């Protein structure tokens, strides 16, 4: 067993950390207040190759492994959650979904521009009336000759107004005895006639990001835009979540680290009762817990990343990492605010933003409650991983870095 990161991993970590600290940290408060995404973020992440980090070079990516993806997410969210959200939807949910399920033609056509960062990806699963209850999806896709006609609305979609390519889940068979089996997945280009979108404002957190709705009104897409088989949509969506949740877990770990670092700095500086508050035991207890949460979350997500590298199924491990890290990131942020006292309650310090940003991750990509059901299901033997027709490919450095 080897717990050390490779020199490659360490350099990736430093590169992304430098980018986030130097270019985003100084301006993030301003954009968080404006409730808008800073316009340079996506093109800059594309230019630096971050948007294609773990996609094979022959599909336009950078050929790094899945652990690198986790490290990137940790570094990004240590500065702001909205940066990591980009990776969750563009990479975890959309690009990796196409990598796993797409045909060679689909990869060439859709994955290459996504990995190069020429286009941005999003994931259209959640609807106004269907969140955790995926089987309640009301969007439809009707086959007409060589085309599908899409209708319906997706809600709470990250990068809704920025994405060019959306992995869209809709009902193709309303008659399916099990409604899960009536769903199919599609690759939707947002410049098609009938697609409209908008951002949602007034969110508690992730305010410097784009979250919105996408509406399809009689949108015609060629049949070759279907990802996987008809009726495979639920399985595809769930496998995408195995990747999306991994990025959320890694990111939440970064958020815990940010809370810990901010708290240590403040506790050493702020004095009460004649000494730095870091010398008071109840403050120390909070710092101790944050350390525990950080280290544990980190081990959990790195194990999930290792499993991905090996090509092993990781639904259980990823879900556990996501549940623990997101719950603990909210708790860490709350304790960080407590340590900062009244200052922590104002936006003079970053910790109030951490608290607001942490809350959402307990809801999106499977609520904490859904993760608990998954864990209980495995432990009680009620849930078993069914073999998928296509698994996420194991990381193979040679294949990943081959030019063609």
């Amino acid at each position, binding site marked *: 067993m080897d717990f050390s990161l*490779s*020199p*490659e991993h360490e*350099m*990736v970590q*430093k*590169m992304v950390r*430098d*980018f986030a600290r130097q270019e985003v940290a100084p301006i993030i408060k301003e954009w968080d207040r404006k409730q808008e995404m800073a316009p340079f973020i996506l093109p800059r992440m594309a230019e*630096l*190759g971050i948007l294609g*980090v773990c996609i094979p070079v022959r599909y336009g990516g*950078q*050929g*790094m492994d899945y652990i690198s993806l986790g490290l990137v997410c940790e570094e990004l969210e240590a500065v702001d959650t909205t940066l990591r959200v980009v990776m969750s939807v563009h990479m975890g949910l959309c690009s990796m979904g196409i990598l796993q399920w797409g045909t060679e033609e689909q990869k060439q056509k859709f994955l290459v521009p996504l990995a190069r960062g020429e286009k941005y990806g999003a994931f259209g699963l959640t609807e106004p009336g269907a969140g955790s209850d995926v089987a309640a999806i009301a969007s439809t896709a009707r086959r007409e000759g060589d085309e599908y006609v899409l209708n319906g609305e997706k809600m709470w979609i990250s990068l809704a107004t920025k994405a060019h390519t959306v992995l869209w889940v809709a009902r193709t068979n309303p008659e399916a005895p099990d409604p899960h089996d009536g769903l199919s997945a599609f690759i939707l280009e947002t410049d098609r006639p009938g697609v409209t979108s908008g951002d949602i404002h007034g969110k508690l957190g992730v305010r410097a990001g784009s979250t919105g709705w996408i509406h399809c009104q009689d949108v015609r897409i060629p049949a070759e835009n279907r990802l996987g088989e008809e009726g495979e949509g639920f399985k595809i969506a769930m496998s995408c979540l195995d990747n999306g949740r991994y990025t959320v877990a890694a990111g939440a770990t970064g958020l815990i680290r940010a809370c810990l670092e901010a708290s240590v700095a403040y506790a050493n500086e702020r004095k009460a009762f004649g000494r730095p508050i870091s010398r008071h035991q109840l403050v120390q207890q909070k710092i101790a817990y944050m350390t525990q949460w950080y280290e544990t979350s980190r081990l959990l997500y790195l194990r999930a990343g290792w499993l991905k590298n090996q090509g092993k199924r990781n639904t259980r491990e990823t879900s556990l990492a996501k549940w623990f890290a997101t719950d603990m990131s909210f708790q860490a942020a709350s304790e960080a605010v407590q340590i900062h006292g009244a200052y922590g309650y104002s936006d003079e310090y970053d910790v109030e933003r951490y608290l607001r940003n942490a809350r959402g991750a307990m809801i999106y990509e499977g609520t904490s409650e859904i993760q608990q059901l998954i864990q209980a299901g495995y432990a009680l033997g009620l849930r078993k991983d069914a073999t998928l027709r296509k698994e996420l490919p194991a990381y193979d450095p040679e294949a990943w*870095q081959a030019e063609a």
Partner: protein
Amino acid sequence: MNIVVCVKQTPDTAATVTVEDGRISWGDAPLVLNPWDEFAVEQALLTKEAYGGKVTALTMGPEGPNEALKMALAMGADEAVLISDPALEEADTLIASRVLAKGIEKLAPVDLVFFGRSSVDSESGVLGSQVARRLGWPTLSLVAAINTLDPEGGSIEVERMLEEGRQVVRSKLPAVVSVVKEINEPRYPSFMGIRRAARVEIPLWTLADLGLEAVGSPAVAWPEIFAPPKVETSCEFIEGDSPREIAKKLAERLIEEKVI
């Protein structure tokens, strides 16, 4: 153009420096490419991109992984060379300049050598000039801009950043250029570069490889090192009913404290 960039591995500047038993300790701070050298590497890469050729990163340091060379390679340097020898453990800049000059001669023919203005650990800031002297080349220090570069004609014109202003200097090539942070915006390493840097075998040259038998003992010794006394600062708010009154009180206090 054959370009050499001399770099150094230093502790991260975020580290806390302490003095332990008369020696400087950086604790367990991570090692990084000397921040000033990032500008030198960037300028070497920009020069190569504009005029073609190759960039070799050169350093002197202990045997083993070298963060400065790895970073230079990850940013895009073509090659890297580590000069390492047990005899260099206590080297001062006179010795280092001799060794680096020999290394540059071994890479001949070299057109341009870049240095950062100084290193964040020892801060001598003279190594570039010393190397130039050893090579018998012109030294262009504190360079904030390269106005013209003519590899064929063998000339370079730069702007030096001085306290009084900028000084335009022309010289022939080959030359040694040490750069300041105003000259460019260093790039981040690319993922491709990172992969290459992590895998490439970096050649190690010993003194014998450079044709040096002995380097002598350092001319500079550090008999004592101590941390600067801790400065206790306190913050005092000057209050008053009107800005005029506050300003008056402030001026009085500043005179009283002999600040003005």
